[in-house]
């Protein structure tokens, strides 16, 4: 085990634990904050895998904007606290079982498929190389995506406005 692997494992453990806390916390804001930790750790993992540009985007978009949006949303939809158990539905046992099944199933599949493969550690994710790929090979997808984003923007505005009229 070298340093890279140790750092990755550290980030991985932090990510899993904080994800668990985020999904089980009774305090909604705590959940959002634990999610910040998770997403940050995943960004750290990206860095370890030398995908630094993706890591920065992750930090900027997720940690920076999405989580802020979520926290705002949580604040705007605050309800009277109804006790700890009110935050999970009666469905939780089925949900837990399915989560475990999904995790174990996927884990087993990838283990069976990629046991012994290694990541060589060459630099793959500089901003330059990603930019080249994005604007040479993926430009059509990029443009389509921008249209989708515009549509989402307009849609969000329309939806929230139509709700406010009542």
């Amino acid at each position, binding site marked *: 085990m070298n340093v890279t692997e140790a750092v990755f494992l550290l980030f991985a453990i932090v990510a899993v634990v904080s994800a668990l806390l985020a999904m089980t916390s009774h305090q909604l804001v705590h959940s959002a904050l634990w999610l910040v930790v998770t997403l940050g750790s995943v960004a750290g993992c990206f860095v370890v895998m030398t995908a630094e540009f993706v890591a920065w985007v992750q930090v900027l978009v997720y940690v920076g904007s999405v989580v802020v949006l979520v926290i705002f949303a949580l604040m705007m939809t605050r309800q009277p606290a109804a006790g700890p158990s009110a935050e999970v539905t009666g*469905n939780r046992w*089925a949900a837990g079982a399915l989560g475990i099944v999904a995790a174990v*199933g996927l884990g087993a599949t990838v283990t069976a498929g990629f046991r012994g493969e290694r990541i060589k550690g060459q630099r793959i994710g500089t901003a330059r190389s990603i930019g080249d790929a994005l604007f040479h090979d993926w430009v059509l997808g990029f443009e389509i995506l921008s249209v989708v984003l515009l549509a989402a923007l307009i849609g969000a505005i329309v939806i929230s406005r139509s709700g406010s009229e009542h």
Partner: protein
Amino acid sequence: MRRHWPYVALTAVLSVAAAAWAIPQLDDDHGTTHVWVRGDALLGVSLATHVDGLAAQVMLLAVGVGLLVQIYSTAYLGHHPRYRSYALIIVLFLIAMLTVVVADDFFVLLVGWEVMGLCSYLLIGHEWQTTEARSGAAKAFLMTRIADLGLLVGILVIGQTYGTYRISEVLAAGPKNSTAIALLLLIAVVGKSAQFPLHTWLPDAMPGPTPITALIHAATMVAAGVYLIARLLPIFEASELAMTLLAIIAAITMLLGALFALAQTDLKRALAWSTVSQLAFMFAALAAGDRDAATNHLLSHGAFKALLFLGCGCLMHAVGSSSLSAMGGLRRSMPVTFGAMTIGFAALAGVVPTAGFFSKDGVLEALHHAADGSGVLPDVLGEIVFYVALATSLVTAAYATRLWLVAFFGDAKEHDEAPQAMIGPVVALAAASLVLSIGQPFHFGIGLLSTIIAAAGIGMVVWAWRAQGNLDIDAPLLARELDLDAPYARWLPALVGSAARLVVAVDRDGVDVYPRSSATIAQFASRGLDLLQSRNVQRYATVIAAGVALLTAAAVIWT
């Protein structure tokens, strides 16, 4: 009287028509058969008549008594609010009896036979406000109708055996399969003529109006049973079993009936038991194979029993009750009734020169013959029945005397004589009871024996009357009629009642299980599926995820 004459006229027209039909046939031994409507091949019911001497005699008896009863009823029941339906049902009753008598098709006979049962049900239940009338009528109808089912099945057997339902053709074909047929017919006859063990309905039918009792006991209903066996005697004679059974039933019934009659405290009920006993005499004669003796006794009994019942009705009209304790000393105030009923009681007891003496003489002679081994019956049985008949004659003479003494002698009571419309028929019947003895065969030895026995019976009772001053008989077992009615009055209704309750309970809780359980299963399944269709997004998502997991697993496992 104006509201009564149409019904009397109707009955009279019917009687005259029947008489005009019957009288030319009186001496015709072979009979005349006439087919009015021929049946088709499948149903095989033809409207056919057959009238011979036997049928003609019974027809005359039926319409004669019927007409007298109808006249009598104008006074007895004339002011009853339901006189109209009563009189019409009597006419229907007579028509049904005539149908039975003249029918040459078993189904036509059955129609008359059962319509008669219905008419007796309606007439016995005429005073349906009272519990006794209701239950007596229901009992009469049920017992006779259930017994009639024997006739119904018997007819089916006849049809299958002979290939025809015509009585004359069946008789002409000679006996076949006769034990089964005779036994089935015997059931119906035993029920209709109130023989042991189906005898209990007749005394319980006493709540019916007294003229009706006279009609049922003398001329219609019970006479039909005797007539049926007399008509079909060749079939019965071919079966030793049926004849033996008939003789045994007759022997038991005649003695039981006479003993019960002796112990009664009610005049009408005593006369009812006397009918049961006298009918058994006729069956004994038939069992001995002597049709003429049986028919002669049927006719003379019809005359004197109608006389006794109508006379009893006169007494009830005067006294207001049929209980013997209410009567006594009526001979002074009701001399005509007294005279007529004296003739009737004498005929019942078998005193010379009444018709009853001669016809009973014929029956005893027939039984005496049967003991010689000339008939179908085994000798021993013939002898036993003969001695039982002698014993019954003794008891009969005793109870006839007892009833006569208690009703007409003793402390004098003042009552009015019955109206003329009632007295007239009684006198006519008294005359008939004497006239019918003209030209009857007479057997000196048996006649002497029966006269001695009758004299002994009368003498014993007169001696007891002189000695004690009353004729109360203390025999509780006889007064309760040996509890022979218990199976019909209590056990059978209780059995049917509890079976009925059981069936209803099983229907509700047992048979209904499958519809109810299928409803439960449907509800259960619906609730299970309702969990899936919960209108809850997360449930849907869970189900979808589980489905994906299962499908993936299935794909992995089976590829």
